[in-house]
Every structure is written in C-alpha cells, then in structure tokens.
C-alpha cells in the first residue's frame, strides 16, 4: 500500500472528532470515504493533509510519516487536495490558480514560472494543454475564477491540485453543489485523472451514484470511526451501514 493511515485520532476540546481511524490507498486506486454528516470525514482528510495536527495515529506515505507535516511540505512529497468549498479568490484567473498549484510542486516541474523577469508563456501553454483542456477549462483560462459557474470553479480547484503532479490526491466532496450532469462529468474527469497520472485518490463524497460508479473501494465512517470497508457492491448490503447511514432500522 502506498498510503497507510492507522489509529488517527483528533479531539477538539472534549469532542473526539476522529477516533482511531484507519485507511489505506494504493497507486491507481480510487477510495471513497462516505458517512453521515459529522462523521469526521473531512476532519480525517484535514488530518492527513496537514491542516489539523491529530492527537494520535500514524499515516505512512511511501514509508514516510505524513502526520504533522505542513501542507506545503506534503505537496513536495506529492500529496495534494481539493476543497469542499472553493475559496473566493477575486482577482485570480483559472490559469493563475493552476500556476499556484504548479508553483507548489517545487523543482519537479518541467516548465517553471519565469520569476520576476522571465516570461511564463511556456508554463501557460503546458498547463493549458495538459490540464485545462482535459478539464474543459481551456476556453476560460484567462477568466477570473470568481465569475465562473460553481462547477467550473471546482474543476479549476482540481486543476490546481493536479498541477502539483500529485501521487496522492485527496478530494473533499468534489461533486457537492454540482448538478447531477456536472457531477457525472466530474466523476469521469476523476477517473481520467487516475488513469492518466496513476495516482492514488481518496474521495470524500455524499452522492452515492457518483461514489458507486467511481470508486474501486469504499470506507464508511460514523461518529469518527470506520464501520465498514469493502467493494462498492458490498456497501449497500452491509446491515450496519444501512442502519447508521441509510437510516434503516437494524
């Protein structure tokens, strides 16, 4: 396994938000993380990608401990994430956002930012061709992100994460707020990303149809702990999952 997280625990005051959570993911695999609201899914992701510092646990990525590293350091190790809500970044264009992502990967890039004096033309062309076009963003490359519809903003956020050329990609509700048509398109993009870059993907999501059709494996969280892990088909038939998650009486 490329990522192996074990016993991840974080407390806020007296509340245990994530309790002994374990999860792993292999390159080229899309792992879905589902669960009811407040189950601790996003908090878990935040722990893995450096936003929160968990109270206990380990998360090994290619043999290195991730927990406690800053997002900045994590990006250098090839760990990138997207956000549930895309921040409002008034002035930045789609291309700007992508460049920010590319900048974060550090020395790994082929065409780097030109710095203060140089030109960024080469970088722009590369990003447009390899990222924006596959994400259907090439036509809005120079449009301020604020003026785009929600779905395209999420795509831009994904482009930013991908520009860092991650090997582990954490997606926080990538299709939330999108229409179901947009959602399916995004799901296709995510699969395409996996196929193309071969990265491991962990995806927090509510929309079951997207999860079912996209993920290779699914973990279910409730009240901070994992209650199930298995193939998509098995999830829906598990009685415990049906009870806590789908609301059926046990």
């Amino acid at each position, binding site marked *: 396994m490329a990522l192996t997280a074990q016993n991840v625990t974080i407390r*806020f*005051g007296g509340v245990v938000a994530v309790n002994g959570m374990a999860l792993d993911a292999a390159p080229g695999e899309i792992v879905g993380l589902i669960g009811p609201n407040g189950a601790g899914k996003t908090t878990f992701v935040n722990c893995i990608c450096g936003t929160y510092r968990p109270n206990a646990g380990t998360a090994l990525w290619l043999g290195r401990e991730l927990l406690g590293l800053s997002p900045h350091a994590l990006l250098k190790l090839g760990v990138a994430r997207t956000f549930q809500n895309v921040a409002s970044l008034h002035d930045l264009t789609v291309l700007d956002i992508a460049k920010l992502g590319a900048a974060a990967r550090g020395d790994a890039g082929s065409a780097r930012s030109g710095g203060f004096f140089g030109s960024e033309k080469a970088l722009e062309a590369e990003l447009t061709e390899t990222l924006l076009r596959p994400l259907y963003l090439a036509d809005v490359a120079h449009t301020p992100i604020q003026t785009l519809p929600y779905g395209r903003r999420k795509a831009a956020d994904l482009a930013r994460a991908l520009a860092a050329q991650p090997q582990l990609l954490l997606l926080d509700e990538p299709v939330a707020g999108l229409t179901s048509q947009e959602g399916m398109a995004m799901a296709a993009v995510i699969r395409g990303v996996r196929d193309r870059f071969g990265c491991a993907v962990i995806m927090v999501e509510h929309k079951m149809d997207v999860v079912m059709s996209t993920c290779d494996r699914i973990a279910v969280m409730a009240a901070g702990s994992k209650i199930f892990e298995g193939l998509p088909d098995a999830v829906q038939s598990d009685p415990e999952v049906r009870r806590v998650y789908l609301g059926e009486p046990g």
Partner: protein
Amino acid sequence: MTLALQLAVAGLATGSVYALIALGIVLIYKCSGVVNFAQGAYAMLGAYASYVLLRAGLPAVLAVLASMGVMAGIGALTERLVLRPMLKAPVVAVMMVTLGLLICARAACLAVFGPDQIAFPPVFPAGAVSAGGIFITYNYIAAGILAAALSLGFLLFYAATPMGLMQRCAADNSRAALAIGIHVSNQVSAAWAMSAALAGLAGTLLATLNGLSIGLADIGMVAFPVVVVGGLSSLEGALVAGLVLGVLQSFTDGLLTPALEDVLRANTGIYSVGALQQVLPYALLVLMLLLRPQGLFGRRGAERI
C-alpha cells in the same frame, strides 16, 4: 512610601477611566466583531454634551445623565447608519470606517467649540483630602470612585440581568440567539448605545479632571493596548488591565523614569529617557502579544474551516 501610595491612587483614578473606555470597546467587539476606533470620540462628544447641558443650567447629575442618553442615541445611530451597511465588509474596512468617524467627530467639535481648552464647570465640590502626606482633591477621588463603581456595576449587569444575558447570548452565538428568539440586531444596537454612553460618562469624568478639549479623544488610543492586554473579548480583562495600566503609567512617571534617569545621568552620557510612559502601554502590549496573545483573561479558540 507616601509617594508610592499617592502614585497608586492617582494611577487608579486614571486607570478606572481607561477601564470605562476599554469596557465599551470590548462590549462592541463582543457583539459585532468590530474594533471601534471611535470610542475616544464618544468620550470627547460625551464630555462636550455634558458641558453644553451644564452651561444650559442643568444640575450636574441631570446633565451627566442626559449626556449619557444623548451618547446612547449617537452610539445606536452609528451602528444603524454606518456599521450596518458594512456588515459584510472585511475587517480593515470596518476599522477604517470607525477611524473616519473619529476624524469627523474631532473636526465637528473643533468647528463648534474651537481649538482651545475649555474650563469644565465644577461637578464635584472643590477641596482636597490631606492625610499622612497624601494629598488628593475631592474631584479626583469622586471621578475615580465613580468610574470604578460604574465599571463594576456594568460587569454585574452583564453577568446577572436578563438583558445582560441576552447580550451575552447574542455575542457568543448570534445564530443560536436568533433561534431562541433574541432580536440580535437590536442587541447589537443596544451594545453600541451602552458602550457610547459609558464612553460619554468616562469623557465627562476625564473632563472634570483634565479640562475639556478635543485632545480627550486621544484616550481611545490608550484604550487599545488596554483591551488587548486584557483580552479582546473579556470585560473583566478590560477592567483589570485598565487599572493596571493606569497604575503602571503613574509609577513610570513618578518612580521609574526618575530612578532610571538618575542612574543614567550618573553613569552615562544619556540624560533623559523622554516620555517613557507614552510607550509603556505599547511595550506592554507587544510583550503580551508575544507571551500570551489571547490576553490576561482571553480564551484561545479553535479555528474551523
């Protein structure tokens, strides 16, 4: 020893006025998340209002109460007319708008009352207590006690009355307050009104001590270190920090500076340390921010995304 005692008394008197102003700033911050630069302006306006009313022949108690009423109105009006349209504006904009208010209020008083200091009509009886080498005027005692009593009274009000409870509720969690039927925006207006009235009273007290001029508005700037040292959202903190700062400044003027200068003059070429008390609050503030950024009484909060 008598010097130290007298310095302490003087410091407590000024400190209690600082505390009154700082309480107002904290109150507004708790309720609306705004750091109000215009608090000093409220103090100044309150003092001028008292002055006008006293000159009109009102008895002292009535005049001061009426001026507090006027200030409450001005406070509520500020909130409605200036702050409410800026509900969604970023914090720098809101801070600047209160700075704009300060500039306007000063300019208005300058235009109406002129630049010179005006003698404030006596509110307290003249005379002084002189005992055991300590010498202090009635005016000083009265202003100090009044300010301290009001600060305490206000804390009690906030802790124990229904209205205080509603205020606290609205300040702590406006959504929850709305849900249990508290009219939050009215509570915010009320906070501004109360805070302006408090500042107005503080300004009046200060004017009885220091005379009346637009320089009164400067006290707002001293109050900022006070609120940060106390903890931006802690009323008790504002009270304690105000008193501490008042006493510290007084000791700096009366003991620390001369002692320091005596040593420096005897041993080095340095003759003076200048107006040291002026930077003292800020030095204290920096120290506090570095050691305990949440202030004396503040709580550290977790941040959510």
